[in-house]
């Protein structure tokens, strides 16, 4: 599963930030586009498995899915794409182009404050 590779890349990025902060990470929020094809359950499972025995063990992942966006060629507005109804939500036109999909981002990490 490609989620394993994503989990490894995440662990690396979080560990680097944790070293900078010299603190224990507790939660992380990531965001992704539709085309990243991420299954939340699979990613969380993979992340849990590879963080065993690391500083990130027990961390919680929050995954935000950003919808695909279209740019209407008729009214020039961008809109959220609904795969079951492929038309501009503002004017109803079917003439639109797909905007680039959201990238896979590590948005935010929450750290424990030292006692």
């Amino acid at each position, binding site marked *: 599963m490609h989620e394993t590779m994503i989990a490894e890349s995440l662990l690396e990025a979080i560990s680097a930030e944790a070293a900078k902060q010299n603190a224990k990470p507790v939660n992380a929020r990531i965001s992704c586009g539709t085309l990243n094809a991420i299954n939340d359950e699979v990613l969380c499972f993979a992340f849990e498995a590879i963080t065993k025995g690391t500083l990130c063990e027990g961390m919680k992942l929050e995954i935000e899915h950003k919808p695909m966006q279209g740019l209407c060629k008729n009214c020039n507005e961008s809109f959220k794409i609904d795969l079951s109804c492929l038309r501009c939500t503002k004017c109803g036109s079917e003439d639109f182009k797909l905007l680039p999909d959201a990238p*896979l981002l590590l948005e935010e990490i929450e*750290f424990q404050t030292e006692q």
Partner: protein
Amino acid sequence: MYKVNVGKKILSANEEYALKNSQLLTEQKKLCLNMISSPGSGKTTILTRTISDLKDKIKIGVIEGDIQTEIDAERIRATKAPAIQINTDGACHLSAAQVNSALENLPISDLDLIFIENVGNLVCPSAFELGESAKIAVLSVAEGDDKPAKYPSIFAKSKAMLINKIDLLKAGVQIDFDIERAKADARKLNKGIEIFPISAKTGEGLAGWYDWLKREVKKLRL
């Protein structure tokens, strides 16, 4: 507890390799097509036939991705074309780093076109850029005409789509596959997608696919 804003791209290592691959291919003016489909839709059969039929016109090399085994690379080598096998060892997609080392082992300067046969999977490979010139989605009529509607990402990202095994529709096999529906669904998200209904077995429809390949190779030479 306190929060730190990071805003860092994940999988940036893959993107860096993809960029390297794409720079190499652009510099050398080579066309590189990443073939993506479910297992068994006929990618290797399409490749072996394409290589043989075009052997006097386009010099083709292949990067074969499979979870295990060297079987597909051997099928390609039987046509005399160079092939590098990558075994992903369980992973559901090829990575740009794997393609980078395969490119180093192919005699690129002798080739016009490099095909990458990705691991059989309609979802995951479309999330990993390899630095290819374009993606090609392959769908066989045995899989059902609802695939473009159900798996939009690969069809949205592909420059062309091959609908393979159309011989089955004529052979009286019980298959409900509406080519027009598959085409219309693929075009909803990707107006410019080229669509070629073909049979790698009988050769039907391949002429259009070959003309398209010749045009794309020629574009790079200009």
